Structure formats: C-alpha cells, structure tokens
C-alpha cells in the first residue's frame, strides 16, 4: 500500500477496527464494508449509535449505503476529483487543523525550483519521459536544508542510489511498495518556512494544485449535485478538530484503479490536513480482503520485497550489502537501522554461513531487474518463458482479471502444482472452461502436467494470520487434515528437505544458498509436520545468547542477532507466543492490547504520538489517547506509544544525529526520513508527488480537468489475449465495475462449493438500472450478454434502482453496470466468470490492475456458443477499431503457435 507508505511511513491501516466506534464521522469510500467486512462493520454501527454521521461514497447503492446517513453516488473512477474538492474546500475555507499541520506535516517544506505542477502542464508533472511513459523524479525533490547527502556515511553511494532510482528497470520493480514500513528515502531534510507563505512551500503548492477542484468541478466530474458535495464537506469538517475526529475507510474500491495509489494519497492529504491521523476515531482504515493478506505483504510472497518491507536486491543497485543499505545510511527515522534488519534477516536464513567476511551471504540472494509481478509472469508463460508454476490457495483462472489470459498462461507451462481444498478451475483448465467450448483449448494440445495437492484447512494446522489492522492471531490445530491433505508449511518444508537431499553432494555454487539454508525445523506427529511455533520464533529473531528478541531495537548489524522479519520482532517477546494471547476483551481496557499482537511492537494505533500536541498534551480531553507524563518522564496512555518511550516532546536532535535520534520530540511519523506526514511526496510514487484526476483507462468520458486523459504512467500488456477497449468508444459505451457479495468469497473456491453459501447467491448476475434495462431491452431475471474486446460472457440481470445512471453537465449519460466476480463453471453455484470480461491495465506504482472500472456493451439474451462466440467478439473488435483477438494454439500468438509444446525453456 504505497499510498499510505509514502504519506505516513508504513503501508498499513493507521487505526484499528474497534477504534471506529470513537469516530464522530465515518466516510466509507472505495469500500462496501457492510457487505465485505460485515463483522468489522459492527464498529461503524457502534459509532452510529453514538451519534456519528456515516457517509457512503460509492457508485452503487449497497448494503453499506442502506445503513449510512448519506449515500453519494459518484461516477465511477472520480474519487480523486471528489477528495481533491474536499481538500480545496478545507484549504480555501481555512478549515484545516493549523497547529497539527504546522507541527506534524511537511506543509512548511520547500520544494526545489525545477518542480512544475500538473496544473501548469495540463495534467503532467515535470520530468515526464513520453517514450518510456515514466517520470524522472529529480525535479520533485525538496530544496535541501544543507548540501545533499552531507548526513550520509557515504555520499557517493547515496548519490548513485538517487541516480539509479530513476532507472526504468528500477522504477518498474515497484520500489514504492518497499515504503510499506519506512517511508521512501529522501536525500536530506528540507528547508522550511513555518509561516507556510513561501510560494514553493508544500502548503502553497497544495493550494494551487487543488484550486481547480471547486464544488462545481467536482459536481461536473463526479456527476453529483454541489449540495451533496457540500453536505459531505460540512459533516467532515465539522467533525475534524481538537474535540472531534473523522475516519476514512477504504478497500480495493480504491486500490484497483490505474491511479489507485494516488486515490489513497489524496485521502492521506485530506486526513492529514484535518489532523485526523494518529488520533482516536480518526485515521485511514485500509480494509483488506483475505485472512492474512496483510501478513503476506509483511512476510511477503512478493517479487519485490523481502520480509519487513526490505526491498529485494536489484541488479542495477545492489551488488553488495553496503550498496543495499546505502539509501538509509545516516538517514533519520527508523529506516536508518536498515543494516541491522537486513543482517539479522540474512543470519536467520543462512545462520553460521552468513558471516562478516562473506557480506553475511548477501550474494546468496537472487536479484530482480524489472517487473516480475504476477501479470508479467502470466504473459511470459504464454510466450513459453516459464516452465513451472505453483498455485497456493489462489484461483487465477477465475479470480484474476482477464482470467482467459491466465488460463492460456497455465496451458503453456511444463508443469503446475495446485494446492487447494477443492478442485478449482485453475486445476481443471486443461479439460474444462470457456476455451474448450470455443475450441481454443483441447486436452490433446496442452502439455502441462498438473499436480493437485490437497491442502489443510485453517483448523487443521497451527500458525498466525495477520488481519487487516496488523494484528497477528495464533490459530491452534483442532484436528488432523484428512488423507493426503497437508499444510503449506508441511509442503514447503518437505519440498525443501527433498531438494536439499538431492543436492547434498553438489559442488555447484548456485546450490550453496539452498544447502547452507537454515532448514532444521522440528517436526511432530505421524506426518512429520514442521513446528509453526519454531518458524514464528525464527521470524521473531534471537539475540547473541540464543534468547528471543523483545524488540527490533535490539537488532545488530554485526551478525550477533537474527530475525526473519524485523517488524514482527516482539511477537515472541519474553519467550512467549504473544500472538496466542486471548485475554477476554471484557477484562481489558478500551484498547485490548493483550489480545494477539500487533506490529510494530504491539502498537494498535500508528503514529499515536500525534494524538497529543507538540508539547505532549492531549489535543482535548475527549480525544486523549497517548500523552507525555512529565513526572514519569515517559509517554503513556491507552495504547503502546508509537514513539520512543523516553524521548521528551521538546527533544531536538543534535547535529549529526542518525536514525531515530535524528527525529525530534514532535516528529510523530517515526518511519519517515523527516518525521512528518507527507502532504507532498517528493519520492515514493512513480506517477506524481501530488494526486491528479485522470480518467480510467477505459473511461467513456473525457477528462473534465486536464488534457491528459488517463494516468500517463499506466502499464499495459499487449497481445491478442489482452486487447484494450478504446476510451470513449461507442462500441463499448457502458462502464462496468466488479465487486464481492457478502455471501461469497473472491474466486469462489471457498464459497461456491459450500451448500449454505451457494444457495444464498445461486447464480452469476449483473446489476443494472431500469434506464439501462429500457435502453437495451433487458428484463429482470433474464439473461444478458456482456461484451468487451476480451470476450463475451452471459449473466442473469437484476434490474434495480440502486444502480443509477449519471447525467453529466454536457448531457452525457453514463450507465454503470455492477458485476460481482465470484463465479465460474465449478462448484454448486455457477456462471460465467466476470473476470473474463476484463483486460489488464495497471497502476505503475503497484502493478495492481484496474478491475474497478472497465467498459463493455450489454445486450439481451444468452451469448453465442462454440466458435460463434469468437466471431461475435471479433466483430465487436472490428467495429471498435481494435486489433484482432484471435489466438493460436493454447492462446499463443497466432504466428508462433507450435502445437503440442509446453514452455520453450
């Protein structure tokens, strides 16, 4: 979540679910919380019962809207315009929390003279390279307080680091996500103007940048009346001050856009101006959709990250440990200890083989040199560049946009391992599915060997999930998994064991990392299940005498400590599995610190130093949370302070101070290089230091604000299997958005197969307005066919006034179609796969696809069957001026389709 990381220093929700009950106003935008997080929604209900205003901003009227005080049906893909309007409202009416803004943000920082705002370049910032569709971010920097890099241990290294940051191969590797815990590195602290009047101060730049986002402009872009906008603005600003706080809740309704990270940035700017970060009832609540999706970024199965948001070493930047830590060396903030964290990780992985003299085995790590993300890999599979693939609890043949392209990828592998509970579509693509109907795939042409390996359920294994607000909770094992079903821990441990056994006599240096790996976990039971507790202890880390570490502050760069994920250090504090703590909530205070364990260091609300004023006193009695206790000489309060416990509020860093010592007593954003929340992001995002409204890639509307129609850095894959619908196309005149329903889970493997869930939403359907139904002759309960440049699918139609056409000022009517994406051909509840309709176009910051907006046509009746379907879609492509989508054998480019072969490797 680079939007949050670049703003505040950590890519996680800033507050926690229970804290929503303390809000005076809750804005749910980009999230359908009541449907997708129903149990978390109880805290919104709690707030409402206490008198809070609940606002739901969403193109659709959902079960969340039904409970809200106000539903704002904005046009899909216009959240930056809406939020930008609120920022403008706050700035021009001087409704920001001035004391907070001056003290805790970079409002006073000065930006360099070369910076040119998108206001002056019609939607582009300075530094745009049209050929590579990338920005050189050099001109976005602060004006330095002193000469650049003077604080660095190694100025030459750091300068080199800056230079390589703009390397396309480095930008493509998603560096922004490494800001997940620790803001983006900055060269030095900026010059400041505390009066906020300097024309190059962040504050003045912000004012100018958002001046265009007037209520009238918001109304025009979003398709809502100015009065509705003003109602939201009033409720939000009336409930954001010393005594009151407003919380914002978002989910993939924001991230799954080609400007997704900037949506979150816009909200971060607004919430920072309103002084709502780090305070009870405030914050930005990022709701995540899988049991441990936060955990899987913290302890990442992601190409660009190592555990704890340390970046994967990049071939162009990191030829040594020294280079790897250079960007942090001498920097302020906790990122300044990067070398300690990295060395401890290397010690955890390679133990005695990681020594000072071999750079702690840094060279054992593979290097990335570009985008190796999931969609890139799928495209590589189709062109035969990937031999084997593991699918571990994931069903891309249904759950990923352009599932059709995903299935073609699978058909071009040598082998595939699927680990799941049910026989999901991604395991049966070789014999079933839409492409078998059309004749594009046949078992005889698909060489992919498939291993279906049955998995254990959540009650058949022990371990931790990290939920949406960073809390790790330990699950105990209830029963043994049946037959061959095994945990993924079992699978990977034993696979590693077998591989090491195979290679034990190898002298090939490429095998050393595997052979030297620490891999001696204790096993238990008949199936030799490895101990998850032992793994969690390794993640926590050990001190020089084999004792479990209590805090990452104890980590050293001399090799005397180990720790597999520094931000999780403390989960085994005092030798106790803190994640397994279950002290009943009723026996605890308002912040249940003894239930599970939250990273970092069991802090439930991030940046909570900001709940007190610069002197350390609560901003108000009503909103007191963490404060400075002068008598005790420490920070205290309801939560664990997210601040050095003994650092006085009036502490001023001495010259030459490093890491956390370089942050002052009133710098609450301890992971940022300057200790401040970033209204302006001089680094960390590839598509601009400030958010700008761009239309979605497949928008049916012209950008009302700038000449630049869509995000200039958006990423696309081109191939016959991923044709884009042209923007503003008359052939694909309707917007379509995908989402979940309460009754199902993602690609359906865990819900379409269960009778009690399947019967609640038994068939694939789309939701449309009565107006669109009339326009296209569609009837409730009957079939309709949806068409894009990818394919055509059919769905039952639910005609409802909850879907509303939007009429824009110029008379354009935008029709929006709602399309839940849970279905495919397997299971009890079935239907076509919504994701087949979507193409893949991505936010360059995150490589996350824009599945919340695309375009399509919709016509009455069922779709054509068999090869006729291909003709039908191809005719649409022709009419829209889109290249042919015809594919060769197994979905390959028609020209290089050599039948019957798997990968070319």
């Amino acid at each position, binding site marked *: 979540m680079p939007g949050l990381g670049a703003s505040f220093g950590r890519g996680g929700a800033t507050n926690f679910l229970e804290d929503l009950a303390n809000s005076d106003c809750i804005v749910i935008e980009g999230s359908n919380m009541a449907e997708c997080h129903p149990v978390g929604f109880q805290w919104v209900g709690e707030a409402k019962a206490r008198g809070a205003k609940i606002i739901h901003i969403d193109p659709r*009227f959902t079960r969340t809207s039904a409970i809200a005080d106000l539903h704002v*049906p904005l046009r899909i893909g216009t959240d930056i315009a809406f939020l930008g309007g609120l920022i403008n409202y706050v700035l021009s009416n001087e409704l920001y929390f001035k004391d907070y803004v001056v003290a805790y943000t970079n409002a006073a920082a000065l930006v360099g003279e070369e910076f040119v705002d998108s206001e002056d370049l019609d939607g582009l910032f300075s530094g745009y390279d049209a050929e590579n569709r990338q920005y050189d971010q050099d001109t976005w920097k602060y004006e330095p307080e002193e000469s650049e890099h003077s604080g660095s241990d190694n100025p030459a290294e750091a300068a080199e680091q800056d230079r390589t940051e703009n390397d396309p191969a480095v930008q493509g590797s998603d560096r922004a996500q490494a800001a997940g815990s620790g803001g983006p590195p900055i060269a030095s602290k900026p010059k400041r103007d505390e009066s906020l009047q300097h024309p190059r101060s962040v504050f003045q730049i912000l004012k100018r940048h958002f001046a265009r986002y007037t209520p009238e402009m918001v109304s025009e872009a979003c398709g809502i009346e100015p009065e509705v906008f003003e109602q939201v603005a009033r409720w939000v600003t009336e409930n954001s001050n010393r005594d009151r706080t407003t919380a914002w809740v978002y989910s993939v309704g924001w991230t799954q856009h080609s400007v997704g990270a900037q949506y979150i940035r816009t909200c971060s700017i607004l919430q920072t101006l309103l002084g709502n970060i780090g305070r009870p009832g405030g914050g930005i609540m990022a709701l995540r959709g899988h049991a441990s999706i936060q955990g899987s970024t913290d302890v990442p199965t992601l190409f660009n990250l190592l555990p704890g948001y340390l970046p994967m070493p990049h071939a162009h930047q990191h030829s040594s440990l020294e280079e790897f830590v250079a960007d942090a060396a001498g920097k302020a903030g906790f990122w300044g200890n990067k070398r300690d964290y990295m060395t401890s990780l290397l010690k955890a992985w390679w133990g005695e083989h990681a020594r000072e003299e071999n750079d702690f085995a840094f060279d054992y790590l593979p290097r990335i040199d570009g985008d190796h993300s999931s969609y890139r890999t799928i495209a590589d599979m189709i062109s035969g560049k990937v031999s084997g693939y593991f699918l571990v609890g994931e069903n891309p043949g249904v759950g990923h946009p352009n599932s059709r392209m995903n299935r073609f990828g699978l058909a071009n592998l040598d082998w595939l391992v699927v680990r799941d509970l049910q026989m999901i579509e991604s395991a049966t693509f070789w014999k079933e599915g839409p492409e078998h109907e059309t004749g594009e795939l046949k078992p005889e042409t698909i060489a992919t060997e498939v291993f279906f390996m049955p998995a254990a359920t959540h009650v058949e294994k022990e371990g931790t999930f990290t939920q949406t607000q960073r809390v790790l909770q330990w699950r105990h094992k209830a029963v043994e998994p049946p037959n061959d079903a095994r945990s993924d821990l079992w699978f990977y441990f034993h696979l590693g064991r077998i591989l090491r056994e195979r290679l034990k006599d190898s002298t090939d240096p490429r095998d050393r990392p595997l052979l030297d790996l620490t891999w001696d976990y204790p096993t238990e039971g008949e199936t030799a299940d490895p101990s998850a507790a032992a793994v969690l202890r390794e993640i926590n880390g050990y001190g020089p005498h084999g004792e479990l570490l209590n805090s990452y502050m104890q980590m050293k760069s001399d090799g005397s400590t180990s720790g597999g994920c520094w931000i999780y250090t403390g989960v085994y504090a005092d030798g106790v599995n803190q994640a397994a703590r279950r002290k009943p909530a009723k026996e605890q205070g308002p912040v249940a610190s003894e239930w599970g364990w939250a990273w970092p260091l069991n802090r439930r609300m991030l940046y909570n130093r900001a709940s007190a004023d610069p002197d350390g006193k609560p901003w108000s009695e009503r909103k007191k949370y963490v404060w400075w206790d002068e008598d005790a000489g420490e920070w205290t309060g309801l939560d664990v302070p997210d601040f050095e416990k003994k650092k006085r509020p009036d502490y001023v860093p001495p010259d030459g101070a490093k890491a956390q010592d370089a942050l002052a007593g009133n710098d609450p954003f301890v992971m940022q290089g300057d200790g401040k929340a970033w209204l302006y992001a001089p680094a960390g995002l590839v598509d601009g230091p400030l958010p700008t409204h761009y239309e979605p890639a497949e928008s049916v509307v012209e950008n009302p604000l700038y000449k630049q129609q869509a995000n200039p850095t958006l990423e696309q894959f081109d191939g016959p299997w991923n044709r884009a619908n042209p923007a503003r196309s008359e052939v694909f005149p309707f917007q379509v958005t995908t989402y979940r329903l309460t009754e199902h889970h993602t690609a359906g493997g865990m819900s379409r197969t269960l009778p009690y869930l399947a*019967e*609640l939403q038994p068939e694939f359907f789309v939701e449309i307005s009565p107006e669109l139904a009339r326009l296209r002759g569609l009837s409730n309960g009957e079939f309709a066919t949806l068409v894009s440049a990818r394919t055509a699918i059919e769905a*039952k139609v639910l*005609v409802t006034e909850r879907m509303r056409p939007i009429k824009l000022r110029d008379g354009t009517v935008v029709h929006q179609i709602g399309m839940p994406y849970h279905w495919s051909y397997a299971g009890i509840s079935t239907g076509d796969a919504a994701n087949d309709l979507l193409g893949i176009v991505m936010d360059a910051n995150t490589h996350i696809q824009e599945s919340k907006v695309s375009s399509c046509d919709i016509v009455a009746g069922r779709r054509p069957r068999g090869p006729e379907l291909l003709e039908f879609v191809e005719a649409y492509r022709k009419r829209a001026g889109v290249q042919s989508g015809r594919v060769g054998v197994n979905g390959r480019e028609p020209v290089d389709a050599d039948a019957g072969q798997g990968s070319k490797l």
Partner: protein
Amino acid sequence: MTSISSASPGLAMPDPKNRLFGPLPDVSAEAGYEEDHPKRVGFFTDTSVCIGCKACEVACKEWNTLPMDDSHGERDALGLSGMSYDNTGMLGANSWRHVAFIEQSRAVDLPMPTHRRPGDDRSAGGDLPAPDSGDLDSTAKAQASVLNAEALSEFDPQTGQTGADKQIRWLMSSDVCKHCTHAGCLDVCPTGALFRTEFGTVVVQGDICNGCGYCVAACPYGVIDQRKDDGRVFKCTMCYDRLTDGLQPACATACPTQSIQFGDLDELQERADARLATLKAQGVETARLYGRDENDGVGGDGAFFLLLDEPEVYGLPPDPIVTTRDLPAMWKAAGKAAAMMVGVAVTAILGSRRR
C-alpha cells in the same frame, strides 16, 4: 381459516385457566411448568441495523444441519430469484431464518413511500400486476398495493439527484418463527408433537410428529412447513438444545450488528421500547414495533420486530390472529373425550399385562 366475530366467546369472555387469546403473563406456567421455570425468552429483531448479510440464515442451518433450499422450495435446484438479494424467498422447513430485502424509492413530491420489486420497470407502472393477481406472493402483493406508479414514471434520476439518494431505501429484515403467546400450530397439533418449552418457546418434536400438517394451516404467519421428502414439519426451535446448554440461539450469536437480539422477553421489550423512542426522536417517523403488543391477535410474539415500514412491506401479516381463538369451548369437549379414551386404554393395558 377461522373467521373472526365480535361475538366470539373467546374474545368476549376469556377462559381464565386455559386462555387461547389475549395477554398471558406466563406462558410456561400455563403449559404446566413449575414456578421455578426459566423466564420466557425471545428474539428482538431490530431491522434498522440489519445489513442483510444472512449470517443468521447460515448459522441457523449449520447448527440445525438443515438441508439446502432455494427460493422455489426445491432442494438442490438453485436459481436466481430476481427479488433483490433474497434468494431464500420465505421461511420454510429448511429455512428457519429468512432475510427479506425490500427496495424502495421515493420521488421528491410523493406524500408516501412507494415500494417496488427490482425489475419492475419504472415507466411501466401501468403494466404491473394488480395487487390481487394470483401469481404474486404476499411480499409482492404488499408492495404493489402501495405503489404509486404514476409518480414514479416522472422520476428522473438526473433531475432528481438533489437529495435523491435519501429517497432510495433498501430495507432488510430477518424473519423467523414468532413463538407466539398463543400459538395456533401448537393448539391444533393432534399428536403433541408441538409443545411449549420451559423457556416459553414453541418447538416441534421430530420423534412425535406424524406429518398431518394441521399446524401448517393454523400458523397465522405461514411459518411452519412440511419437508417434502420427509413429511414432517420443521421450524425454528429458538435453538432449544443450545438454550439447555446456556447458549444463545445460533442466529443471534452470529448476527454481526446485533440486529437479532436474544434474551429474556421482558428485557427485550424494554430495550425495543427504548430503541423505538430513540429512532422517533431522530425523526424516523415510520419506525414501529411489530409483535410487541400483548393485546394483538396472538397475545404478542416471543420473536418481535422493529420495522421501518408497514408490516406488509416486509411480507408480514398486518394483523395476525391466532387461528384457534375460538377453540376453548371445543377443547372442553375434546378433553372429555380424551379422558374417556385414556381410561379405556389403561384398563386394556393393565389387563393385558396381567395375563
């Protein structure tokens, strides 16, 4: 169905001992439980906080291991109902909780709310089936009966945008067996399969029920239902087995927003009265309690509701009357007959044992 007449002896002069109508302060004592029986328990379903998640439906089915069902009442025959997000359709032998979804919209100048089913074309109001059309279920009838189609045809989503969003309402309500104070099902059951528990709830005993189906017709709410392949009747037990273990019913345990509240009935009634007052104070004029009044046709419900509109809108009968209201007199005669039969039976058995 029993007709209602003001001359009915039950209404004019309730039998003080075995009343089948009117308020009844202690239903369990009435059913023969000793004085130390537990307090009467119930459900208060506050629909104003229901988010339509259907956790109640699933938790109920999981606990009671009910077969899957669907809107057409046929097991394993799944299909989209087309009725908003309601694919359960109604309470039945296999669905003991049912969440109703009602979509409403109101144009600016309309004096009263209008109710629509999704799919009813906004402009084609005149084509809507008449309220008494036989092919509509009770919910649809209820909705169609208050529909102002003419006004809706003038509703323009573009011009009506100012405040228009407040005019869309999506009501959700989790329906359940009412566990009536005077339960028609229980009163007509000839086998004693239906009985009043010590908690004051009404439960079917599967080991007794012979599938005669009298109770189905006797329920003023249309709750109790026969399972086709089994023949016997099934309905909510308020998780009788869980109550014996000191647990709450499964639905109330799961409910994420406390829309379904379980507890002692008198406490729930107090809570409901307070909630109603709060909503009224907030200007929610349409809020009302349903099944709370012990003077209603069933003597008040063990499971009662806070609704945001007329009961018909939710598919609930506006004025339910226990079907056995007039029965006490008949029962006296039946009782005498039963006593005589017992006498005969006991003699016969004892006689046979002696041999």
